[in-house]
C-alpha cells in the first residue's frame, strides 16, 4: 500500500509545485527518455542523483522514498529475471558483466519510478485534468483519467480495512508456501474488486443525476497559463536532452563493472 502513498498528490507551494503540469509532464518524459537511452550503470546513477535536488526542493522526500520502498519488490523481480535469463543464455555462466547489467536494469526502473512519483506528488488532479482538457483531449477521457487517479488513495484505504477485517477472521497473509500465499490474497481481492465495481456504478448514477454531459461545450473557471519559469524549464530540459544525445552517440561512457 505504501506505493500509493508515494503517488498521492501532496499540496505545496514550492517552485516545482507551481510549474505548469504540462511542463512537469515534459520533464518527467525527459527523465524517462534519458533512462531508456542509457544502459550503463554510471549514467543511470547520474540520472538518479540528478533528480535528488528536484525531490528535495519540492519537499517530497518522505513520500518519494515511500514510493521507492514500495517498488522494491518489482525491482527485485527485474533484477532476478535479468540475471536468470542472462545466466541461461550465457551457457550457465555468471559473469560480472551480467551482474552489472542486471543491476543497472533494476536501477533504471527505480529512476522511472522516481520520475513518476515526482510528477504525481507535485501535480494536483485538478491541474492535471485542466492540462488534459486544454490539450484538446475529450472531456470524458480527462474525467475518467483523473477520477481513476483520485480514487487510488480511497482504494488503498479500503484495501487496508479489508485486510484488517479478514485478519480478524483468522486469515494469516504470510503463512504457507509461495502458492498458498498468493491464494491468501483472494479474500482481500474479491471484496476490493466488488467494491470498486459497485462504487463505479454508483458514481455513474450520481453523475447522471447531476447532468453529466448535458452541455457539449464546457467552460472552466481557471485556465492554465505558461509562465517564464515554464519556458525556462523547457529550455533547460531541451539542452540536457541534446547534450545527452550527443554524449550517447559520440562519447564512449566508461563502463565500470561490479566484481563477482
Amino acid at each position, binding site marked *: 500500500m505504501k506505493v500509493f502513498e508515494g503517488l498521492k498528490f501532496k499540496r505545496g507551494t514550492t517552485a516545482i509545485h507551481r510549474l505548469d503540469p504540462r511542463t512537469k509532464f515534459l520533464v518527467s518524459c525527459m527523465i524517462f527518455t534519458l533512462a531508456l537511452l542509457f544502459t550503463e550503470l554510471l549514467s543511470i546513477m547520474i540520472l538518479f542523483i540528478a533528480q535528488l535536488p528536484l525531490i528535495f526542493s519540492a519537499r517530497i522526500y518522505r513520500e518519494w522514498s515511500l514510493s521507492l520502498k514500495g517498488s522494491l519488490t518489482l525491482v527485485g523481480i527485474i533484477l532476478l529475471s535479468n540475471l536468470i535469463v542472462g545466466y541461461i543464455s550465457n551457457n550457465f555462466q555468471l559473469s560480472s558483466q551480467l551482474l552489472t547489467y542486471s543491476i543497472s536494469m533494476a536501477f533504471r526502473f527505480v529512476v522511472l519510478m522516481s520520475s513518476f512519483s515526482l510528477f504525481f506528488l507535485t501535480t494536483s488532479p485538478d491541474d492535471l485534468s485542466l492540462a488534459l482538457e486544454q490539450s484538446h483531449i475529450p472531456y470524458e477521457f480527462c474525467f475518467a483519467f483523473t477520477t481513476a487517479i483520485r480514487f487510488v488513495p480511497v482504494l488503498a484505504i*479500503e484495501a487496508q*480495512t*479489508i485486510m*484488517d*477485517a*479478514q*485478519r*480478524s*477472521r*483468522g*486469515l*494469516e497473509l504470510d503463512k504457507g508456501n509461495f502458492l498458498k500465499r498468493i491464494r491468501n490474497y*483472494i*479474500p482481500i481481492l*474479491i*471484496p476490493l474488486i*466488488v*467494491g470498486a465495481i*459497485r462504487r463505479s456504478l454508483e458514481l455513474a448514477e450520481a453523475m447522471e443525476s447531476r447532468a453529466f454531459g448535458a452541455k457539449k461545450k464546457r467552460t472552466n473557471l481557471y485556465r492554465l497559463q505558461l509562465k517564464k519559469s515554464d519556458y525556462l524549464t523547457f529550455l533547460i530540459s531541451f539542452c540536457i536532452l541534446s547534450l545527452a544525445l550527443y554524449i550517447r552517440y559520440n562519447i564512449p561512457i566508461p563502463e565500470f563493472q561490479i566484481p563477482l
Partner: protein
Amino acid sequence: MIEVENVSFTYPSGVEALKEINVKINDADFIAIIGENGAGKTTFIKHLNGILKPTQGDIYINGLNTKKASIAELSRDVGLVFQNPDHQLFCETVEDEIAFGLKNFGFNKDAISERVTWALNLLDLTKYGKVSPFMLSGGERKRVALATILAWDPKILVLDEPTIGQDFHQKDKLRQFIVQLNSQGRTVIMVTHDVEFVADCNPKVIVMSNNRIIATGSAREVLTNFDILAKASVLPPQITQLFIKLSDLGLPQNVIDLYEAKQLIIDLTKGRLNNEGL
C-alpha cells in the same frame, strides 16, 4: 479481562486518534461505547484484537500484551465485527463464508458443519445458507458478517455499530441475543450511536469525545447526564427528554426505560384522579 493502560494512538498520517485511554473491562461485562463521529471509537476497538497497536501504553487481553501477539491469535478470543459487511464477504455461499473463519482457526470438519448450522440458525439465516452473500440485502449481509464471527464463539465479542440497517424486528432480536450471549458469560462490547438501543440493553456505558474517554457509568447514570452527552454530541433517549420536560409535574428525571416510564405515568394519573376526588 481487558486492561487498557494509558494508551495513545497516532495514525501514520499524523492524526492523533486516541489520547491517554485507561479502562478495565472484566469478564462477562456488557459495555456500550458512544460518542461523536470521529471520537475514536472504531480506532479504539481495533486495538482490542491487535489490528492496531498502541503508539504509547499497553493493552492486555487476559494478561497477554497485544503487542506480543498476532491478530489471528488474539482474534480467537476477541471477535471483532466490522461496521461494513462488504469489507469481508467474498465466498460463493453464506455457508462457506461462515466456515472461512472456522477453517482458519483449525476446527475439524464435523465441528465446522455443526457450527455453521448453529450460526445460521442463531441469526435467522438458515434459508440463505446456499445463497451468495452478494445477493442479500444490506441488513442481511450485516447479519451474515456477525454470524461469521459468532461461529467460532469468541469469549469477547466486539461490535461496530451493529444496529445500522436493521429493522425494528431484527434490532429486537439482536438485543435479545446480545443480552443472552452476555448472560452466558461472554464479554460484549458494542459501539453505537443508537441511544434507545443502549437504553433497552442497559449495559455499562463508556462515553468518548475528542479521542478521550470522558465518562463511564451505568446506562442510567450516563444517558441522563445532559452535560456529558452534549460534549459527545449525543441526545438522551426520547423518553428521558420527555421526562425532563415534564419535571414540573414532579416526575423523576432519570428515566431511560419505557416500562418504567409507563408505570410512573400510570401512577401519576391515578394519583391525580384520586386527588380530584373522582
